[in-house]
């Protein structure tokens, strides 16, 4: 764990302690379980986003995708009577195809990630609304999927299974990002795509793969979100979720220029964001201020991090000059 991640962890604990002191309900099992469920859902989404951001790209369409894929999933199993494992695989494949399309437009046709995914944001939202005729996708009364519901919205030993899912995905993705050849390529491309290309890396394929990973993880989280809310009105479901994911990555130390950030960082970023949401609720802050609180904290966090970097660089120089002075008389 890097010092940056450690700092973020301490911040999370300090904020948690303060909230717990002001309102002890923060520590109630039911509250912790709810919060960790949301951490699980948003965490999966944010890890996907992190893989794109590490390449220096951005994926703005994930909120709309959560709405579209969630709508399709519920429609498949509730209306069309598809077996849920089949529907799940289908949705994940759909997520992968959409990610591939984004990656293809960005790497082969050289469109900017911002533009491509902004169009995606608009298109998928529109398609989702059209698909339900601006209605709501939901389950009929008495419709049950016990296995699926256990895996997505259920709990084991009091802990939401979505949180366990996040832990498993995080461990796998940590290995991919920080230990694998592919992960090294991602960092290299994020730092300097030209130099990576001149080192014989097929940069286009790697970047495309990052968008595919993002698409698949988004699709998975879309299913989790769908099973969590159980009914989806595509006009608002998943709105701004791309910003939650980006914010989690930025809080976790990712640079939007690419090449920087860690998996632990993005998880901690997600935890802090959900903690803040919870804080707004528990401290009786008007929920209309929700976004303002989040924005303020992110701004302060990024500012402190940046200033801390400047401070450390200065101290290193002072230390170095002290060392040379101390060494001088001995010569």
């Amino acid at each position, binding site marked *: 764990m890097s010092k940056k991640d450690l700092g973020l962890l301490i911040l999370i604990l300090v904020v948690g302690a303060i909230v717990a002191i002001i309102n002890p309900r923060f520590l109630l099992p039911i509250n912790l379980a709810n919060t960790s469920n949301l951490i699980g859902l948003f965490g999966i989404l944010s890890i996907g986003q992190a893989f794109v951001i590490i390449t220096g790209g951005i994926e703005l369409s994930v909120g709309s995708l959560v709405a579209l894929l969630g709508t399709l999933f519920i429609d498949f199993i509730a209306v069309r009577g598809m077996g849920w494992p089949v529907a799940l695989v289908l949705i994940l494949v759909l997520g992968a195809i959409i990610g591939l399309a984004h990656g293809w437009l960005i790497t082969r046709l050289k469109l900017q990630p911002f533009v491509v995914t902004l169009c995606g944001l608009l298109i998928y939202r529109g398609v989702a609304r059209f698909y339900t005729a601006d209605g709501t996708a939901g389950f009929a009364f008495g419709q049950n999927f016990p296995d699926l519901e256990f895996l997505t919205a259920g709990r084991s030993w009091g802990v939401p299974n979505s949180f366990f899912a996040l832990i498993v995905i995080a461990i796998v993705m940590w290995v991919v990002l920080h230990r694998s050849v592919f992960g*090294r390529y991602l*960092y290299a491309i994020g730092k*300097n795509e*030209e*130099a990576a290309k001149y080192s014989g890396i097929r940069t286009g394929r790697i970047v495309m793969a990052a968008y595919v990973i993002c698409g698949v993880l988004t699709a998975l989280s879309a299913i989790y979100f769908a099973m969590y809310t159980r009914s989806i009105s595509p006009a608002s479901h998943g709105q701004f979720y791309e910003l939650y994911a980006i914010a989690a990555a930025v809080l976790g130390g990712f640079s939007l220029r690419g090449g920087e950030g860690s998996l632990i960082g993005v998880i901690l970023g997600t935890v802090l964001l959900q903690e803040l949401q919870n804080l707004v609720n528990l401290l009786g802050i008007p929920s209309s201020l929700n976004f303002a609180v989040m924005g303020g904290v992110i701004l302060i966090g990024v500012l402190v991090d940046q200033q801390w970097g400047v401070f450390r660089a200065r101290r290193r120089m002072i230390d*170095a000059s002290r060392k040379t002075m101390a060494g001088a008389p001995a010569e």
Partner: protein
Amino acid sequence: MNYSDTSIAATTAFLSLENVRKTYPGVVALDGFSMEVRPGEVIGLVGENGAGKSTLMKILGGVTTPDTGTITVDGAAHNSLTVEGSLGSGIAFVHQELNLFENLDVAANIFFGREPLRAGPLKLVDRARLRTMVAPLLKRVGANFSADTQVADLSLAQQQMVEIAKALSIKARLVILDEPTSSLPIAETDKLLDVIKALKADGISVIFISHRLHEVERVADRVVVLRDGMLAGTLGKRDINHDQMVKLMIGRMLKEREKASEAARAPGAVALAAKAIQTPSYPSRPVDLDVRRGEILGLAGLVGSGRTELARVFFGIDASLGGTLELDGKPLALSSAADAVAHGIFLVPEDRKLTGILLDLSIAQNISLPNLPAHAKRSLVSASAETATAEKQKKDLGIKAPSVQTRTGTLSGGNQQKVVLGKWLAMNPKVMILDEPTRGIDIGAKAEIYGLMRALADAGVAVLMISSDMEEVIGVSDRIAVMHEGQISGILDKDQFSQENVLLLAVGKQPR
């Protein structure tokens, strides 16, 4: 000091430094350094990388404060200069990396931030007056382009002229040129040296910093040599010659340079053959070229003659618009650099920092990057395998760094270049293309890189070296191919080597 051989000796100095010392944590960058610059004098400032040249420039530019010492500018003594003070007293810099706005035209660049304004509250730029102000400046630097040309459309030498015109526009009395010719081809270099002479004739002093000693030889009235932060010596006009400068720079005489009289090597089989290759920049001019095993083929020519573009096609970065490539007699299709690498065709690119290495990665990570799967088990990177490969290259190439985990961004240019070489040498090169491999690298490291290229050729690798440095091309190559406007204008064998022949071919004429 004795300047008896120059007539300018009598006039008082415009700038003088006395006993200037500057230390950084852990290093003494300048130690008791003194020098003088007289009006209309051209000073050649030479020294290896790390000798203290950049510190000296920072002090003159007012960016850095010296620890002790006196700086006298135009009769006024200071302990240190400020940026405004330096500019105000007429010291202007033309940096190696040009500071021009490529998307603006020449006039806008020269008077950027000081544009003449029309009357009225809108403060619109008075374009007519701007043009009349720029015209005489461009004339003085001998510009062959107009004031409303976009800077992006100018050649490098022309851009430097714009920088110099900018210096003249602030009524500069001392122009400091930092490595101005390092990226210029021969003909353009001549133009720049002419501009220096014109400045001198106008009574403007010039400090000319360069690694290209023969150019220093041509324009300098006096040469100041820095070594390890100290004044290694000053050479008066009559004593300026290549060997003297080198001797002062490194503190000893270099070994007799490899004589061209070496027994002609038996040419090996053709490794890489270009047959009617059409590069994107000169699509109508097909190129035929053979690079043989065991030879160093020098590729000379003016900047913009299509050498780098050809190298990009050989390395799979750009697709050829026509023609075919052959490797060892078999047709070769390249759709990416990855394909070229897979075939053992490697490129050491021109722009080290942008394309050669990743400055943020460690030496080990850079060296393993092109061959990462070989340093991995079940596609997980093995740090120990990486370290082992990098340690070997570090030892073989003499990369000077605390460890292979050191960030490459902290290394000197020469050591960075060795990392670029190391990443390819760790694999199995068949064809090694080097684009300006010694640009901005000090003399010691240059000699090592020449040695490496020769060792590669001796091991049967086909080496293609692009270079704008005439001495280098003639001194290192076994054959020289010269490009002119996208085509190979001629190929010289060892017995035809001469600066004149290369130059004639480079401008499209026949050699003698």
